């Protein structure tokens, strides 16, 4: 998949989203997501937040940073931090090779990269198909999970990167070793 396609879809989708409206609980909206693998698990982020998908390039590590912070890369003159999603979920450390990709997402004013194993698919999901995360209410650390969806009998967890990598308020994940 190229960035060009990505942008086109982003544009197309933006109109859809405007119509669909973001009011939670409202049924009938359709959103598109990019799904990706970390190990055997499938995750997805909303396509409108994705700016670019890059092959892994070695990052400059930042001292005294959380272990899931893989360092910073140069994206056309802008310094972008790259986070290891696997480490964030305490599933170990990704040893990135040529097949690994960094998904560049835009969170409000910030641009960050998320290191994942591979991009899987573009999903078009009606909002009513998104199922809630069990126990989410009692586990505040699951706030980064928007919901679960079943695609071709596989579970995809839709995540909100903002909740995972917002430097101002990183919720202390019970599962994270940091």
């Amino acid at each position, binding site marked *: 998949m190229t960035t060009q396609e990505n942008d086109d879809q982003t544009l197309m989708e933006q109109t859809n989203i405007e119509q669909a409206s973001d009011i939670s609980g409202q049924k009938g909206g359709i959103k598109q997501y990019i799904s990706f693998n970390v190990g055997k698990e499938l995750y997805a982020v909303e396509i409108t937040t994705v700016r670019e998908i890059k092959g892994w390039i070695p990052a400059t590590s930042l*001292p005294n940073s959380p272990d899931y912070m893989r360092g910073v890369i140069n994206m056309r003159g802008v310094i972008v931090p790259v986070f290891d999603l696997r480490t964030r979920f305490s599933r170990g450390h990704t040893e990135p090779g040529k097949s690994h990709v960094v998904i560049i997402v835009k969170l409000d004013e*910030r641009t960050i990269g998320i290191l994942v194993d591979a991009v899987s698919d573009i999903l078009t999901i009606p909002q009513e198909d998104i199922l809630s995360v069990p126990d989410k209410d009692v586990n505040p650390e699951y706030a980064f999970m928007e919901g679960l969806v079943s695609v071709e009998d596989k579970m995809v967890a839709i995540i909100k990167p903002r909740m995972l990598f917002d430097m101002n308020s990183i919720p202390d994940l019970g599962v994270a070793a940091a």
Partner: protein
Amino acid sequence: MSDPMEQFKVIFFEECSDLLISLEEGLMQLQAGDCDEEVVHSVFRAVHSIKGGAGAFGFDRLVSFAHIQETLLDDIRSGALEVEQAYMTVLLQAFDILSELVGAAQRDEEVADDFGGDVAKAMKAILDQTGVPLAEKNATKKPDIETDTAEKNARLFRILFKPYAELFQRANEPILLIRELGTLGDLTVALDVSDVPDIEEMEAEHAYFSWDFSLITEYDEAAIREVFEFVEDDCDLQITDHGVYLSPEAFVEDAQAGLFEDIEDEPDASPDVLKPRKAVKPAKSGEAVVSQSIRVELDKVDTLVNMVGELVITQAMLREQGGELLVEQYPNLVQGIEDLSRHIRDLQDCVMAIRAQPVKSVFSRMPRLVRELTASLGKKARLVMSGEDTEVDKTVTERIGDPLMHMIRNSVDHGLEMPDVRAKAGKSEEGVINLSAFHRGGRIFIEIADDGAGINKKIVLEKAIANGLVSPDANLSDEEINNLIFMPGFSTAESVTNVSGRGVGMDVVRKNIQSLGGRISIRSEEGKGSKFTMSLPLTLAVMDGMVVDIGPEKYILPLVNIIQTLRPGKEDVNSLPDGRNVMMFRGEYILLVPLYDLYHIDNAIENPCEGLVVVVEGDGGVLMGFIVDDLVNQQQVVIKSLEANYALVEGVSGATILGNGRVSLIVDISTIQDMSANQLRKFQSASPETNKISPQAQISSEIH
């Protein structure tokens, strides 16, 4: 479409801020006893122009206040009043009120009815002393003394000028004629746009406007005719002599003059808002200078700076790649890359110079601050400024305002004594604060010196002990005690005043300055005063750096801090009991800072005798030796923010992009200094009794 009036308002306020600056400058000069005629004129003109513009927009409060001020200044200008210190105080107060009124008008705020009333009264009182009541003055005096004398035999002419449609085809331009006419005397212009046809019928090259001028001049009709000499055949021209001119009520008209002097070339921009105006007065046109500067939107300049930044990175890449080429094989290419490097460096200097601003823009806020402070504290102080023209990048001027204000406040509040105390100590009652700026060694230095009481070391030490910042048995040098005032939560004021001493203190000032890559130091002598010196980089966008290897990583050290690089012999390196290493350097033991350890970098050279030691100067002139693997090269780096997309990283002031496209981090020397001190804390807190940081350990670690 934006309202044209709004657009003019923006211009007006931009000009106001310039005018206010020059007004204050002038007043300061007058206060300093420099009663040069030019200075008086410039002060008068500034008030006059503000009043003029304000009148055009109907800022009545501003106009009426400025009018009194103007009248007073006019008396000074005409010699009716001598400049006296008593007046100066009133004039300076009036300046403050005027700036407030301008600010209020700009923010579209209402001001209290009695705002500035006492100052206005004081000015009126001075005017009354001169014998001529204010009201009468308005009626009988023109603001310009030049025209004053001229008007004795001035005549009023009415000139009707109606160009034929073909005027432009003969290469004539009415505005030039009007300007010329303006040089003859006091000109009022009324524009007649009644002949302007509908847009469909309009011929682009036809002249449709006509004018009705009133000219007060001592020249005769022939002189006026001469102005129109070349257009005589292309227009209807009527000149009528209305006889000897007796000054009518000049004020309202006058009020409308200022603004339109500057937009006079755009009669078609908003014909409906054009009011009769006076053109440039003869006295002014003589001084009129062709503007040597243009206003450019900041965004455009910033884009330019960013692009040049990218260019510098690309150039570094080319140079790196070019270094591998064989000169014999590609002599021209190698030479070309060299030339390119030089040109880009020059280009960058030029671009940075565009953003450079004199520190005047920051300094100019200080006299007023001192005035207000001394008034509210009952002290007497004089602010002496020098080097206001020293230039520094906008990014720096923008951010030194607050720290500087805080320091000035500090000097007035804590530094200077009350007048009676000063008198007892044999000093003049009026304290002097010197604020100066100068360039040295690629940095800008700003010094704030007062001749006050200096830092009372005893009180400072007691306070520090009481606050638990220092252990009671600590033995501190004078310099260490002076530096205590930079500690968080430190305030020596015996009572917390509303001026300073609100908990945020010099520690915040130091933090702010450090975050700019600057340093601050203090020298103080009890009874004689204190001097704060800060040194700041000239720009926050680029710096000269030394690229060093630490393990697999490349870091940048700011070149300005580097004293020397050396490889010590085994016998030069010694250990302290806490495990840290020191090295003899220029007759002193300096601490060796293991950067690899502070940055947690694996596979770096840990033994300074195998790697290199870069001796750097930290805060307060403290020398440290940074242990690195090797030096790579020296180059100019473009500073990029890590915070934009991530967060502040301890020990790192920013990042840059090297020639190979990789990101490299810039070492923040002052936080490294703190981090290295914290290592000591770790050592002490690792003592068996407790894992928590003992207060003692914290104290000794912070006072290094």
